[in-house]
């Protein structure tokens, strides 16, 4: 891979969950993210998809060292973020930014757009001149398609799409190298979704950003990603290049997800109702032994119940965590 910026090795985030009992609470471990590894190159986009509660947002926060990993490492330009001192980590945050899911909730309602976008500037350059800040803020606003004369307005005076643009402007004001987008479009109208995604794409090209783009919508991810990681119950099931993933998924779960994408044509939709999946996602507090997906997998065999499949690399650049990846042919038939 050309100039790798981010390397994630066997990352795990476990939460302690207390249940029942006033004096003797039963402490259980919730494995929100368990053993995820991937690399990310400069200027590359990694899409992350998965059902609700599969650990996508936890992963995003762990990548930014907002959460402490229980195991494994996040290497940013070769440095382990968890090992840095608070002050060094704070400096690194210049390069690492995040865009949130709920555009309005991510903006302090009592601050003007100028103050919101300028906050990272003030934080890293406390002595910067007011004029310079104003100039930079207006520049970034123009870049994300906001009118710079709106600097004095408050978040509640903007639409959802505009708020998301403010969020993106705040993420870009320090010229970061990596932006993590935690479902940045799932709270927006479909027409606005397209605008925001195209904006992110063009900004990425212009600024050579690396993006981690989290979504639960496969078609959105397809549009923006170079590679896609599929998560299930905190584990990576498959990491494939975009073209391979949508044409010939390697993991049965990926293929089920692709089949579940709604089709706007009712005649076709009627023909492909079966995703091959049965049952609901098991509780992450009590995941199945062996392969976490075996309880719902139509191709499950005895081995899947006993042995955890490692995330392994196939001949091409794709990675999969399935014992039967070679035997199965999950090619998606064109509709």
């Amino acid at each position, binding site marked *: 891979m050309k100039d790798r910026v981010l390397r994630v090795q066997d990352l795990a985030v476990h939460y302690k969950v207390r249940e029942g009992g006033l004096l003797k609470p039963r402490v259980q471990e919730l494995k929100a993210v368990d053993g995820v590894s991937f690399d990310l190159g400069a200027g590359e986009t990694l899409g992350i998809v998965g059902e609700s509660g599969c650990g996508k947002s936890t992963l995003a926060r762990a990548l930014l060292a907002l959460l402490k990993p229980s195991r494994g490492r996040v290497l940013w330009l070769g440095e382990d973020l968890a090992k840095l001192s608070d002050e060094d980590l704070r400096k690194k945050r210049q390069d690492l930014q*995040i865009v*949130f899911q709920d555009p309005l*909730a991510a903006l*302090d309602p*009592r601050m003007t757009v100028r103050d919101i976008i300028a906050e990272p500037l003030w934080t890293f350059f406390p002595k910067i001149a007011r004029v310079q800040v104003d100039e930079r803020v207006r520049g970034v606003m123009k870049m994300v*398609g906001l009118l710079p*004369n*709106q600097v004095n307005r408050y978040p509640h005076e903007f639409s959802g799409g505009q708020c998301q643009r403010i969020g993106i402007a705040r993420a870009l004001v320090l010229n970061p190298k990596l932006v993590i987008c935690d479902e940045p479009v799932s709270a927006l109208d479909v027409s606005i979704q397209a605008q925001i995604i195209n904006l992110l794409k063009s900004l990425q090209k212009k600024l050579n950003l690396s993006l981690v783009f989290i979504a639960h919508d496969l078609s959105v991810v397809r549009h923006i990603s170079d590679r896609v990681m599929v998560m299930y119950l905190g584990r990576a099931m498959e990491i494939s290049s975009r073209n391979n993933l949508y044409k010939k998924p390697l993991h049965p779960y990926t293929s089920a997800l692709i089949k579940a994408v709604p089709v706007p044509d009712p005649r076709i939709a009627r023909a492909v109702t079966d995703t091959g999946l049965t049952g609901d996602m098991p509780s992450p507090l009590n995941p199945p032994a062996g392969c976490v997906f075996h309880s719902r997998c139509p191709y499950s065999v005895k081995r899947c119940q006993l042995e955890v499949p490692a995330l392994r690399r196939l001949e091409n650049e794709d990675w999969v965590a399935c014992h039967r990846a070679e035997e199965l042919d999950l090619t998606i038939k064109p509709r």
Partner: protein
Amino acid sequence: MTKSADKPVIDPFEAALEVHDIKGRSPWEDAWHRLLKNRAAVYSAFIMAFMLVLVVFGPMLISWESDFTDWDYTSSPPSIESGHWFGTDAVGRDIMVRTLEGGRISLLVGLVATIVSLVIGVSYGATAGYFGGATDRIMMRVVDIIYALPFMFFVILLMVVFGRNILLIFVAIGAVNWLDMARIVRGQTLSLKNTEFIEAARACGVGDWAIIRRHIIPNLLGVVIVYVTLTIPQVILIESFLSFLGLGIQEPMSSWGALVSDGAQDMESAPWTLVVPSIFLTVTLYCFNYIGDGLRDALDPKDRL
């Protein structure tokens, strides 16, 4: 085709860039406009302002001294001829000037004790709520312990140990009132600290104290202001209660509570000694409550039915 090609192309986005800055309307301004529409709150605010002016400047305009004993008119009913418009008490002191001067003390106690509880409560509650975990548990247990002390017992103890003076009343009331404030602020902070804009600030490398100062406190100020306007009357009432029991203000100084207490003893022979300070006290309490209600509706429109 050719015609349109002649015209200079104007990109609407570029054109809009030339427009001067638009002024935004902050949530505070919105709340202010909503407050102005609340009649009860606006009238109450005017009455309170009038009351303040009366209490501060009134005694200077009245020719009687508050401790002057007019032997010609002891327990005299309100009358214009005698010059004692609101009458006198059993030892011939003018009720009007005593009520206004007592108002100074009552309002001062209300204000100072509230500020004390505001400062301690907000910083304590925000710290406990933001840092959470063991810090939170220890800090809130301390609050619980102080809360469990019987208030009257605490005040009497203070009086016995340090003797009676006004400062002690401020301290005693403030020391008890910040507990509620700390609990309210902590609860608000807990819900605020998990919001995405706090997380965004953390992701930008903003320090903990800056987050508390810049994001948490401004966002819980709305609730705090409402609580403050409801605390002031509560404190005035507590002071009145202490004075009524004889634990509060000392003669010759007076407060509304002390005056009501005095008046209650002469209730049958000179009812005006009870009625006049009582009216001032109740009007003040009502006004603060209406202002508080109005502020709550204005600052948190979601709560309104």
